[in-house]
């Protein structure tokens, strides 16, 4: 019985040692310590892990340096230069167009069909 317990203990120790010999993968608190940033800087989830933010992606893409790049630098690192005017997406003032009732149009079945069938993406 005592022999069995000891063997069992040794097996458990072996498993622990084996597990500790494997390499760490994925996001870890060490990264947070290394960079001085909270998990949410690099991950969408505040608790870390899973999907990365643009900053997180840029940090991984640049070989995990000591600091996490700021958003503008992160986008530049990823080769992104946004051309979007963010003011276009804000409704100040909010424009409400009066509803236009439907009308019968000349039947253009073939034109519509050709246009729909020439769909090139997504």
């Amino acid at each position, binding site marked *: 019985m005592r022999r069995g317990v000891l063997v069992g203990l040794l097996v458990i120790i072996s498993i622990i040692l084996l597990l500790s010999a494997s390499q760490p993968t994925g996001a870890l608190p060490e990264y947070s310590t290394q960079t001085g940033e909270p998990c949410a800087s690099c991950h969408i989830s505040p608790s870390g892990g899973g999907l990365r933010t643009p900053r997180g992606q840029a940090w991984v893409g640049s070989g995990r340096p000591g600091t996490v790049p700021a958003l503008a630098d992160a986008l530049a690192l990823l080769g992104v230069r946004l051309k979007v005017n963010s003011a276009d997406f804000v409704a100040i003032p*909010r424009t409400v167009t009066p509803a236009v009732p439907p009308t019968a149009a000349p039947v253009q079945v073939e034109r519509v069909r050709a246009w729909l069938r020439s769909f090139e993406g997504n």
Partner: protein
Amino acid sequence: MSHLSRRNFIKLTGVTAAAVAAAAGTQSLLDHAGQPWAGMPAAAASALEEKRVRTTCALCPSGCGLEVRVVNGRAVKVEGSAIHPVNQGVCCLRGQASLEMLYSPERIQRPRVRTGSKTDPSATWREVSWDEALALVAGKLAELAADGQMHTVAFLHGDTRGSLRSVINRFMSAYGSPNTIFLESAGEHAVRMAMFLSQGINGYPVYDVNNANYVMAFGGNYLESSRHVIGALAALAFMRRGRPRRGKFVAVHPRLSLTGVKADEWVPIRPGTYGALALGMANVIINSGLYDADFVRDFTFGFEDFTDAVGASHMGFKRLVLEKYTLERVEFITGVPTADIARLAGEFATNRPAIAVMPVEPDGLPLYDALAVHALNALVGSIDVAGGVLVQRFPELTPWPLVAVPTVPSLTQPRLDAISDNPFEPLAPELLAERLAADTPYPVNVLFLLNTNPVYEHPANGKMAEALLKVPFVVSFASVPDETSAHADLILPASTFLEVWGDDFVEGTGYAGVSLRQPVVEPVHDTRNPGDVLLALAAALGDPVAQALPFPDYKTLFEHRLSAIDTDWEKFRENGVWSEMVYFHAEPGSRAWPQVVGRDRLQAPKDGRFDFFARELYAMVAGQGDPAKADLACLPHFQVPAEAGAATEYPYVLVTQGLITHPRPWPGIVPTLQESYGLQANMKWRAWVEMNPRAAKALGVQSGDRVWVESPQGRVQAVVRLYEGLWPNAVYMPPGMGHRTTIRWGRGSQAPAVIGANVNQLLASKGVTRVKVYKV
């Protein structure tokens, strides 16, 4: 009781330590595999060359970034690219198994031309050089062009990636044929048309599940076979466990799929009735005043009854839903209890942002089902908000070279696929086959087939094969012999995505992006990129086709197209992807709002309003027949779907759902995927049919019995699997099986053989398919 002696303890400890050391050494060896080590002979060290190449998967529409480890010129491992926005390091089973496609023994190794007639069973294939093959095709096309018969050349294709579809369209238009035909799946076509007719966007929707509080997936198998599988899996995990507020995911389907298992709630429903459930929920939401009244008033059309410009009054969505879709009626149609409908509607409307995912199944009335489901998104104001339905953006590309293509009469010939008077209906492949076989509206002389296998996907009782026999010259780009290429006259084998250059637009993120496809290894066989083949043909044909596509190869072409993107190309090649990374939501009434509502409308007003009443449809149906029927045609509604087969003879309804182990564009056998084909059912290498145990008991069949499953279209054999998670009178069969192989894949297997059964042999092209089941 035995005692452990000191000697034995030391022995045991020694053995344990040795085992740990050996394991750690093995780990170290694994970590450094492919790298030279100290003391390694110089010749051996120099012989090991390892690299990692980033590329883009092409085995489903997700377009995930991959990182492939290549040792000594041979690809040995595929992983997800950590910096790709779509999958962020994750790689599904299909991507992992893609090396089995690259090195598949089934692959067609070089161009081959048929010797003898297609109807002669003794006819064989002769391998030819690319020069000979291209000269053959170019000669046929030039001959037809000289006779003004360009319209008799048709190009049938399935899903394509990146710029390739534009290349096909441009090639065919410049040549002078109107017959570029996209064989889109009926379910995906319905979703695209629903987006177009209601929201005015000609494209597939993007669901921002990450930020949603409530997601209800109608039909399909969202986590296994949607367009953005990896994104969907990651988003589901995040919405439920990765953020402070946990979201809820509901799956609606007659079968408890993996999506249903992973969901917070599975709602079993009668097959083909998703639209009725959505309208029943809309009834509750409207009746309870839980809808987004401001959004509905200012940014939608057709919610209330209205009067048109000539003074005629029309029914609005609200009246239709309140009058026709009472809870009791919806329960009768769908089989979902009234209490559940009311609860689901309440949860959906009060846990915003909420998303109703449109079904992608051809059962029932797919367009109206999709319209009804998408109407729920508008009711709760989930259009282009965080956690709602987004519009996929694409990068600005450098325009094509300007070319004066002469207007030739052949371009104005009727299209082969101009079958229905309703352009919003999906193409019916069996009708296309009938027209091809009957030379209607004219005989087709040359038919190209790319990324599609219509004889397998739409067998239509052999009509498709008959149609191909009728066409004198069929050119296939198949990579492995499949059911359709068996009827070809010439095969120009396509390289796999791991051997070619290509571009791929990022999808499922909302923001624009381009993913790079680059050769991981040298072509294993004498195969080519279909894009390169079309460019070579363009050059051989001369102007105006050569002018339209003046590029020496496909890589030069997409580099030209992508040169408009303001990016660092070195970084792009290194990362394998460029994307904007940020999605800007257009607030209703903002300057950007017309880009997400109404952008693509043709005949309906671009007034920034979501159409509950489809004005685009009204423009086409107005004045034709009964006005009340015309109104109904423009509103989401439910009709009892047509049923192929009488219920008395065919008592069961056949349902099917895509699986993650099914690589749609690859008809060959992938052993790893076959080994895990029915992950949930624990079925592999053979067809199975799932039955509810009650139905099976009534029929006297048991689990493991071999049965015939027969519909009015045909019959196949399968093994019975009893499954409680299935609508009582439904049976389920998996898609993607039933391909013939000439390879003996393992001990006990035979070659040639058909692996599994092709469920398409049973399915009707429209409505609900009924089947009967009986023992072999």
